[in-house]
């Protein structure tokens, strides 16, 4: 009996606290359907009188969230593709082949990771200027793909090192070379690791702020959602419901993707502390 009361109390607290926890999102979405005048007069009532899509249309067309959205999608998907390809290939080489110099490479990269870094965004910006990429999405994509992605490399290496040697041997007997064994036989089994790395990188890049902020300082048309939002509130200071709509455009897709793919994401996070 005592246990059931305790359990009931736990659930009550978790639910009440949980609603408060995600209330900012509820507030954001509900405000995005209000008009600016009802927004001010409706007080704390979260329910809009009726659904107004005007805010979304205004944000999408007038405030160029359509452009920001497209930029965010292109930058995020390209970065995910590049990062996954690089770390998957590296993980396969490190996890499956005991090539000469392997230990040295691991040691050097891990050691370099620990070098204290200064304000690296300035040299990154200068580098993109030198490469002639400072006013292009490609520059932002390359900057977002930088880094050594140690966590993903470790995930891939650990996974590939567990693939039984017989799989590789029988592929070799069938005449498959190194690359075909990797691409046709081993890689398809790595889907869960790819999903974990992809969803983590997706959320990180989608949320990235400083890199696109600095790299698009002179080219507003290349802004991502996060950066575009800042310029939106700078320009339309009193358009609160437009702000809520813009914020929803940016947050709702990533929240939905997370809810569908959360198993992989949480596994990745928990893998990073093990």
């Amino acid at each position, binding site marked *: 009996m005592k246990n059931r009361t305790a359990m009931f109390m736990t659930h009550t607290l978790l639910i009440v606290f949980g609603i408060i*926890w995600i209330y*900012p999102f509820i507030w954001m979405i509900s405000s995005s359907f209000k008009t600016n005048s009802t927004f001010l007069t409706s007080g704390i009532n979260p329910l809009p009188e009726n659904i107004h899509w005007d805010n979304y249309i205004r944000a999408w067309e007038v405030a160029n969230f359509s452009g920001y959205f497209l930029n965010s999608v292109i930058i995020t998907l390209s970065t995910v593709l590049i990062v996954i390809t690089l770390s998957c290939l590296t993980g396969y080489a490190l996890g499956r082949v005991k090539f000469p110099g392997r230990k040295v490479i691991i040691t050097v990269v891990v050691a370099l990771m620990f070098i204290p870094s200064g304000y690296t965004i300035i040299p990154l910006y200068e580098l993109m200027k030198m490469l002639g990429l400072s006013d292009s999405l490609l520059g932002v994509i390359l900057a977002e793909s930088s880094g050594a992605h140690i966590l993903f490399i470790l995930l891939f290496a650990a996974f590939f090192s567990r693939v039984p040697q017989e799989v590789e041997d029988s592929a070799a007997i069938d005449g498959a070379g190194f690359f075909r064994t990797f691409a046709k036989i081993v890689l398809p089994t790595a889907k869960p690791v790819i999903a974990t790395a992809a969803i983590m990188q997706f959320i990180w890049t989608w949320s990235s702020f400083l890199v696109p902020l600095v790299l698009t300082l002179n080219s507003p048309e290349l802004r991502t959602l996060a950066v575009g939002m800042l310029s939106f509130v700078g320009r339309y200071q009193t358009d609160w419901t437009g702000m809520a709509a813009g*914020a929803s455009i940016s947050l709702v897709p990533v929240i939905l993707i997370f809810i569908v793919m959360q198993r992989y994401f949480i596994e990745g996070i928990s893998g990073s502390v093990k």
Partner: protein
Amino acid sequence: MAKKIKSSNGISKYNRNKYIWAYIFILPQIIVFFGFSLYPIVMSYVYSFYDWSGIGPLTNFVGLKNYTRILTESSFWNAFGNTFVYTAGFTVVSISIALILALVLNNPNLKGRGIYRTVYFLPVVTTMAIIGIVMQNIFGTQGFFNEFLKAIGLIDQSISWLSNPVLAMILLIIIGSWKEIGITMIYWLTGLQMIPREVYEAAKIDGAGSWQTLRYITLPLLKPIGATILLLTVVSSMRVFDLVKTLTEGGPYFATETLELYIYRFAFAPDGPSQVGFASAAGVILGLTVFIISLILGWVVYKVSGQKRKPLGGGIK
């Protein structure tokens, strides 16, 4: 299998072919790492020795002048102090609340744990810069929070949360923690799941109550992972930027300006011409500070874990 066909130089053709492929596989990552990671790190030091506005060639070498100037700037020490206040507040709030949540959600008899975990994790996946703007609205003078407090009769007059230096810093810490607690909670849950079931069963047989189990079994066993969590939390919060930039912009009157924001201000949004050299020097000082703190906390991790935990890279040995 591979050793069967040895060639004259001792390495089989099969293996040599494999090695070449392995080098080809790691080459792209190495190029990206050296070009886009290592080069910026090196240059972030180089720039700090120049008086440079960011335009034109690096010509005006000034040695340590940027550094000596920084150390006498009160605005720098203000930002330095704010960074530590934020880090301390963030660390205490997020680690403790995340631990409580993890302990509650680790109970296998609790129904709907997965849903609760999703709910409390949700802020993690959202964009910090957007959150800052949404929260600026919610905590504005005419914002939702004031309206709510008035509606339940807690206050009569609106409070300007973001114009008060102390309240603004507290708000930054609370919102920053709220946003990241989900990650810390998963870290703690990972730690809790690494404790073998038998330990609890043994405690139960010995007649330990749930509080005693927590106090004398669970918490001591969580110490090693706790030290790692402390390291990760402190290091990640010292470079806070997105939230401060969008929620307070360092205001009111620089009361919440952290080092990353201070550096950004001198590099990209200066009152006069850009001072990239000066900003770079401040960046180096921040980097070195984070480095020293991670060395100290890394030593704590090493001591607490009794040198048993796998070092980084253990996964591919």
